[in-house]
């Protein structure tokens, strides 16, 4: 339960950090370490070199812009959770963040680190997919922006190249009047989700859902949009028959097989319950647009 031997560097500039990372194919980026260090203590992860980015200039802070919230790589979960502007402009983030492990973990763990770890049960990757956010990957050849749905590839695997550092995640804001909700089913509060579900939507003058998005975690090898359910619910008034149809269309999205924590059929039932609960909650939070 102690990590095996590794090298350690703590650069202060991004250029140096990328150079060091590129110099060793088995190097790993260390931010908050709340996923990487347990894996190293178990010796499930054995990087040869850790590039600690906590002293790198320009990797801290949260910026609330017109259409999105930009979260730099060393921003701890709790900084984002407690950010007054984030709480005011994006309550979905605070609602999801309350489910990310516990406060002492959120004090140390970073949002971007959680995205890069890409646990398929984790909350923040789901939120990034739900909102259609992006990440900025910086490597020796420059920076590129990667859409959330292209970033999460499979279990603990992203399309980040080994010599790239994800320097920022961008969470789009919701349009005015949109509803939102997130909840999850867990064995114990603070555990990884067995199934988690997020929803955003707007309603038109007739109470019909539009711009409805649903994303789930814990059901596949990555966070996934429930596009079949989205298509069924869009344009409806979200009656229980509509929700039943959406839930039925989503069972095929549960590809996680039976495992120690839950069976696949349990996950399907949990997902069905969450679709009913979360879509209704999000709809109840919509505000009709002012009459022009």
């Amino acid at each position: 339960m102690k990590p095996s031997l590794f090298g350690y560097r703590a650069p202060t500039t991004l250029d140096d950090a990328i150079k060091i990372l590129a110099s060793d194919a088995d190097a790993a980026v260390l931010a908050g370490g709340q996923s990487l260090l347990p894996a190293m203590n178990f010796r499930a992860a054995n990087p040869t070199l850790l590039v600690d980015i906590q002293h790198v200039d320009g990797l801290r802070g949260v910026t609330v812009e017109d259409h999105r919230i930009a979260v730099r790589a060393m921003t701890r979960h709790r900084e984002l959770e407690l950010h007054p502007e984030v709480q005011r402009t994006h309550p979905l983030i605070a609602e999801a963040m309350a489910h990310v492990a516990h406060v002492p973990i959120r004090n140390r763990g970073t949002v971007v680190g959680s995205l890069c770890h890409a646990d398929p049960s984790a909350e923040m990757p789901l939120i990034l997919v739900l909102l259609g956010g992006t990440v900025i990957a910086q490597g020796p050849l420059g920076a590129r922006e990667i859409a959330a749905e292209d970033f999460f590839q499979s279990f603990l695997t992203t399309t980040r190249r080994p010599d790239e550092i994800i320097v920022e995640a961008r969470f789009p804001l919701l349009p005015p009047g949109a509803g939102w909700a997130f909840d999850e089913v867990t064995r114990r509060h603070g555990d990884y989700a067995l199934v988690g579900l997020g929803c955003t939507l707007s309603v038109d003058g007739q109470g019909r859902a539009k711009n409805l998005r649903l994303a789930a975690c814990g059901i596949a090898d990555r966070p996934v949009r429930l596009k079949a359910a989205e298509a069924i619910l869009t344009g409806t008034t979200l009656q229980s028959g509509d929700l039943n149809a959406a839930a039925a269309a989503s069972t095929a999205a549960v590809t996680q097989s039976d495992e120690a924590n839950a069976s696949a059929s349990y996950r399907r039932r949990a997902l069905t319950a969450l679709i009913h609960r979360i879509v209704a909650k999000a709809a109840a939070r919509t505000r009709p647009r002012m009459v022009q």
Partner: protein
Amino acid sequence: MKRMAKPSIPERSSDPRIDVSLTVNGETIHRAVSVRMLLSDFLRHELGLTGTHVGCEHGVCGCCTVLIDGKAGRSCLTLAVQANGTEIRTIESVAEADGTLHPIQQAFKECHALQCGYCTPGMVMNILARFEEPYPLDLSDAGVRDMLSGNLCRCTGYINIIAAVRRAAELLGRT
């Protein structure tokens, strides 16, 4: 009876070392530490501060919780080298020098919120950090359970611990 051959263990670890400077309970510490030394082991083995307990070493039990720059964190999920330049507070700093208990410790004592006491240092440090933060506290049942959700106790069943957190809030005038 044949005696076992003495195992060949080097006198000193050959791990590469890095110089770190940090403040622990108000005292400035300079040490050369192995890069893979966990902060929990640094506190216990290098500094002899054995009040920080080590339960699981993968961030689940919360026994090793200390304050890192004023915020509760797992010392088993922090490398000593990551703590370079930080200010650490451990359970040894909580009671006064003459042994007078901190109100949180007093509340744990009054409410019988511990049996074996193994998890208690982590609980106290976690709650201490929350009480020192400027944010409002949710002292409802669900709120206190949420505050304690990162600390496992295998003896008491939490009821008395929840009562102790509320009693501590009373003693400290936190509502």
